[in-house]
């Protein structure tokens, strides 16, 4: 197996190119962060609208969700990249002309719309999963809609939706690798592909790429697990972060480490783990 003997040499090439690889990695991180933020905003907006009892809010939201979920990410990206600019080509006086030619921005929008629609389904499902007594109580206290959402319903739904949002964010990170085919955007995968030229070997670099993506996904998972532990603690359903992180939990004798271990083992299932709660049922 001579190519295994050559591996050190390939890794050396990768190290020599580390500037460009890091630049590409930074692009990927930006795509993931901005795409994730946009997706989250879209998910919450569409999810709240789709869960509303008012038909005129619910039905348009449902149509948008089904549309952006059903269309493939690549098709959405190509449509934004190649079809949308044609409107501006025919009408050069329209505003926002520069934005339509900004492929990075289009990539963020495509990722945000596609995964935001998936997230909306998770948000809607977790809102319906919040115990009906909680909804009734807010009505009994005649709370206004923003008040009850902010203080009662959303904090509970938030803890329920975090596992599926975490999965979706990792899906978004993985989906961002398709930015590789976009002109004028050099994400991590694109830079790895550039590395093929000096060595004519791809697989060792693709392997480095896989490991880096895996580490990124692990970081995202850890971050979301932290958020989830915090959300649960705020609802009084679990140890606080301090208790989880402290090496010798004194306040809670035996339960705290057990709970911490439990969340870890279930979440290690990674993205796309099967529905653990009803909130995840419609995620895909």
């Amino acid at each position, binding site marked *: 197996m001579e190519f295994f003997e050559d591996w050190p040499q390939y890794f050396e090439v990768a190290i020599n190119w580390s500037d460009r690889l890091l630049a590409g990695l930074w692009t990927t991180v930006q795509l993931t962060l901005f795409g994730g933020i946009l997706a989250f905003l879209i998910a919450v907006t569409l999810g709240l609208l789709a869960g509303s009892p008012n038909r005129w809010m619910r039905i348009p939201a449902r149509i948008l969700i089904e549309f952006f979920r059903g269309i*493939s990410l690549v098709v959405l990206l*190509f449509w934004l990249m*190649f079809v949308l600019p044609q409107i501006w*080509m*025919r009408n050069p006086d329209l505003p926002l002309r520069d934005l339509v030619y900004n492929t990075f921005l289009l990539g963020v929008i495509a990722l945000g719309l596609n995964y935001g629609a998936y997230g909306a389904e998770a948000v809607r499902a977790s809102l319906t999963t919040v115990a009906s007594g909680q909804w009734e109580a807010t009505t009994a206290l005649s709370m206004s809609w923003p008040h009850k959402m902010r203080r009662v319903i959303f904090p509970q739904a938030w803890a329920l939706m975090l596992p599926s949002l975490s999965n979706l964010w990792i899906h978004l990170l*993985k989906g961002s690798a398709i930015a590789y085919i976009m002109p004028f955007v050099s994400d991590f995968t694109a830079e790895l592909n550039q590395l093929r030229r000096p060595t004519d070997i*791809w697989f060792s670099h693709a392997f480095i790429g*896989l490991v880096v993506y*895996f580490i990124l996904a692990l970081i995202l998972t850890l971050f979301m697990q932290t958020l989830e532990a915090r959300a649960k603690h705020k609802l009084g359903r679990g140890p606080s972060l301090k208790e989880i992180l402290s090496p010798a939990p004194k306040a809670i004798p035996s339960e705290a480490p057990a709970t911490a271990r439990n969340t870890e083992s279930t979440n290690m299932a990674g993205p796309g783990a099967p529905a*653990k709660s009803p909130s995840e049922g419609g995620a895909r």
Partner: protein
Amino acid sequence: MMTSRINAAEIDDPSMVDEEEIRQSPFWDWDFAFDAFPDIFMAFLEVTILVTVIGTLVAAVLGLIIAILIMVLPRPLAWCVRWLANFIRMTPIVVQLIFVFWAFVWMDALTIGIIVFGIHYATYMSEVYRAGIESVPKGQWEATTALSMSAGRTWRKVVIPQALRSTVPSLGNYAISMFKDTPFLLVIGVAEMVTVAGEIGAPVFRSTEVYTIAGLLFLAASYPTAVLINRLEKRLAYAH
């Protein structure tokens, strides 16, 4: 040998497009749409559906094997299988496709696509199976011990039939998800629907119709399937 593969993912630079010509033409041209439709639809049937169907079959079988291996193998080996599955699940299918494409240069790109999609989704499906197997009541296992059934017989006749029932909707959802991921195949140069659509549109500088048709085909196929799976899920839930 290594250089024999051309990278089909490098698409045309959009700055090559003649803007003046585009400005003269209408935004949407029905005649062109009707001309382009048959070829796009054929690519849809021949590649997209083929990859989805065979990929789902591979993933469904392999996923079950992975789920069972994690449960029956001795601990260190099971740990390795589990983390390998985690690794495959948490890394982008685009990079995986390219990795396998260059690692197995003698293989045809379509076969590689099917294998990679099969393995990638098998790691998702293994989690579905794991949850299904765990949902089989403990009494069932104890009963097989009481009847002194062999391990193979326990799995084949008792556990798997009960575990599979609840997994069908989730597996269906992953099949749809795989279906929508098939355009990723363009990174290894498989002539799937979106690539074919682009190739039809490129020579005449028309991308509106071809990409819209491709998107509508995806919607037309995935939405009804999703609705069906949703109904099936509800029915299975009531039956319990």
